[in-house]
């Protein structure tokens, strides 16, 4: 039977198990939208800006492990997707973006709402397609989903001209895929795995450095087995949070620019590092020359191009983390490493980077910790990008797999709200807290309308300090406190919430924090809390740009006078 290109898109999405699409319609993609009523199994979530369609699909994909799908029209619809697509690319998130394109006779003529979106997204997608005719739609979508979710996952864009949605073709969903240039390696090389086991078994001070690859391949149990069997302590990257329970006795937190001091010291002193599903991002390694100077490095990653890219490694293993770890664990000797673990515990005692300090005023760290306590750590936390993101990483303990969702590689402010919508829609029974900054939140707050329209019960905590806090911190510490363009005048978030019809509270005092969080939790629907916190609180520890991991600034105690000359500086611990 012949179907239209639009129907073939929908049929193909059903074949791929899609149930949710995030998008905004427009001229070029209207024929596709027109077929949606024939496919009630496909729930369409109307967002308010295409960037958020991509972020929501991204959040949905991270939370569910399925491919996230977004739709946008040609021209500005497609270009608005770009940030969201780039975000998914840098964090290896499987997203399929389907864009309308002007009809074939108009392509290349600067037609109304025409852009070369395959050209534009070429460097920020895993692959992309311009579909030439209706007969190619099914095969293209099959390939797009296959590419997005296999190997190192990533976004794939499929650009479909308006007249292709209307053109008819026979629908045959191909059973097989033939991509000569794409054969991800899943099994690690046995000889390399042997070598890795030898490095680990002979190490006196081994350390596991876990990244998001562990989460992507769901290797939680395998990672735990490796750590426990060899008594190897575990530190993570930012996106590796949620790969290993943080209250586990072998967990030593996050490394990096705002990592725990003891975690960074562990990297600096380890004699073997087992880097698993991570890519030695500069925010994680700090100065590469000073990274893990005493360690033999085993690097397990599915992407061969990550091997030796930033840090030279001694034992590379290309393969799927879970498959490789299963194999590796067989060759790991039981060990105790008592002295090394004692050393780490001592460092943690001497440099307790995650203690919430005493304060009279409301500090952001306190807010995060209370969210942790009230939720019992049983929620998924989604963040924007900035200071609040780092505090959320530091002061909430993530014991549940994949319970921290954040924009790591691209560092996209505004990711929090739309991503949390995707997470909540993907996992409706999950408690989802969007912890956002007032700056980050204002980049995508129009999605509150999506929250209301689609009845998304996400809890939103705005860490409101009236600044673009992270650049302000850098200005304070590195630019002699010249606060250029970092001060924000925000709206009254409670009134704003009211305008959208979302219940909200403003919190200024410490004693109001817990009742507010409890009230939010008691609501079945969405809830917003505007936490008006100390404006000039900093994220510590901090590795200054250009320094190595252990050259970090810990909380200055007490703060020097030089730091408090401004009348606006409400310093709490002087």
């Amino acid at each position, binding site marked *: 039977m012949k179907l239209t290109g639009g129907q073939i898109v929908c049929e193909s999405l059903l074949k791929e198990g899609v149930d949710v699409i995030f998008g905004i319609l427009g001229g070029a993609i209207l024929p596709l939208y027109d077929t949606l009523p024939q496919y009630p199994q496909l729930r369409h979530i109307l967002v308010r800006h295409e960037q958020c369609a991509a972020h929501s699909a991204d959040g949905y994909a991270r939370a569910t492990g399925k491919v996230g799908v977004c739709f946008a029209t040609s021209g500005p619809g497609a270009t608005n997707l770009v940030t969201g697509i780039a975000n998914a690319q840098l964090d290896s998130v499987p997203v399929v973006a389907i864009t309308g394109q002007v009809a074939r006779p108009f392509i290349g003529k600067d037609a109304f709402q025409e852009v070369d979106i*395959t*050209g534009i997204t*070429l*460097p920020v997608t*895993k*692959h992309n397609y*311009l579909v030439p005719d209706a007969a190619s739609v099914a095969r293209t979508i099959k390939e797009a989903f296959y*590419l997005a979710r296999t190997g190192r996952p990533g976004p794939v864009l499929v650009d479909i001209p308006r007249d292709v949605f209307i053109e008819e073709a026979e629908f045959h969903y191909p059973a097989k895929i033939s*991509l*000569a*240039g*794409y*054969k991800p*390696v899943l099994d690690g*090389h046995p000889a*390399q795995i042997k070598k890795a086991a030898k490095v680990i078994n002979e190490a006196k001070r081994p350390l596991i450095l876990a990244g998001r690859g562990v989460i992507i391949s769901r290797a939680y149990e395998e990672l735990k087995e490796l750590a426990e069997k060899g008594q190897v302590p575990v530190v993570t990257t930012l996106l590796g949070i949620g790969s290993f329970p943080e209250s586990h006795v072998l967990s030593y937190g996050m490394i990096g620019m705002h990592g725990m001091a003891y975690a960074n010291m562990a990297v600096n002193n380890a004699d073997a590092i087992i880097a698993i599903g991570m890519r030695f991002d500069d925010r994680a390694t700090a100065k590469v020359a000073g990274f893990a100077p005493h360690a033999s490095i085993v690097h397990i990653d599915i*992407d*061969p*191009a990550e*091997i*030796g*890219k930033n840090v030279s490694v001694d034992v*590379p*293993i*290309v393969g799927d983390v879970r498959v490789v770890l299963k194999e590796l664990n067989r060759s790991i000797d039981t060990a105790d490493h008592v002295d090394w673990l004692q050393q780490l515990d001592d460092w943690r005692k001497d440099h307790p980077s995650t203690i919430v300090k005493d304060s009279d005023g409301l500090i952001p760290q306190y807010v995060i910790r209370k969210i942790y306590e009230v939720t019992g750590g049983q929620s998924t936390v989604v963040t924007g990008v900035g200071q609040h993101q780092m505090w959320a990483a530091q002061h909430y303990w993530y014991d549940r797999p994949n319970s921290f969702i954040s924009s790591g590689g691209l560092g996209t402010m505004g990711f929090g709200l739309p991503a949390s919508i995707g997470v909540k829609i993907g996992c409706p029974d999950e408690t989802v807290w969007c912890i956002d900054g007032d700056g980050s939140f204002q980049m995508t707050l129009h999605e509150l309308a999506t929250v209301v329209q689609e009845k998304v019960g996400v809890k939103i905590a705005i860490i409101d300090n009236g600044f673009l806090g992270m650049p302000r911190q850098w200005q304070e510490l590195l630019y002699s406190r010249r606060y250029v363009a970092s001060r924000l005048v925000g709206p009254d978030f409670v009134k704003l919430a009211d305008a959208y019809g979302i219940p909200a509270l403003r919190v200024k005092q410490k004693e109001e924090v817990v009742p507010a969080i409890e009230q939010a939790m008691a609501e079945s629907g969405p809830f917003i809390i505007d936490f008006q916190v100390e404006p000039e609180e900093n994220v510590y520890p901090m590795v200054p740009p250009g320094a190595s991991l252990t050259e970090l600034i810990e909380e200055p105690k007490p703060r020097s006078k030089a730091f408090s000359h401004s009348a606006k500086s409400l310093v709490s611990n002087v």
Partner: protein
Amino acid sequence: MAPKHTLVALVENRPGVLNRVASLFRRRGFNIESIAVGRCETPHLSRMTIVVDGANTMVEQVRKQLEKVIDVVRVSDITDEEIVARELALIKVKSSSNTRSEIIQIVDIFRANIIDVAADSLTVEVTGDEDKINSLASLLRGFGIKELSRTGRIAMPRGGASPLPIEETGSRATKNRSA
């Protein structure tokens, strides 16, 4: 100066492939000295020969990134292998009845061909490695070169072994592991 690298890539013969390949070099600031693309022994595939300047580690990184491009089937850096490499150039050189025979002599020495003759010019076709083409061009420069067009290098390893056996599926993985 950074060493010159010769990369050979087997790619899908599809629109946009050249763009995908070139963009990886552009992103890292490589200047592509030459790139030659054409059909090859396998239907639907093309073979590219790319010559770039770059530090070994940088080129290796780009090679791995090229491997990731879905439309790229295989890539090899054959710089350090025994290869045969050729380039073709067309040189349109000014000539008159006085200089014509001298030009023909030079062309003969280089075993090049004259493929077009006009009243005031000769067009020479020459095949060889870059040095040979450079020397012929510099000799002809004295007569006045009106137009010079070069294809860029195409290359393959000597002997039976191909660096890009498309049947053997394991090669990519092995190569990556040893990287």
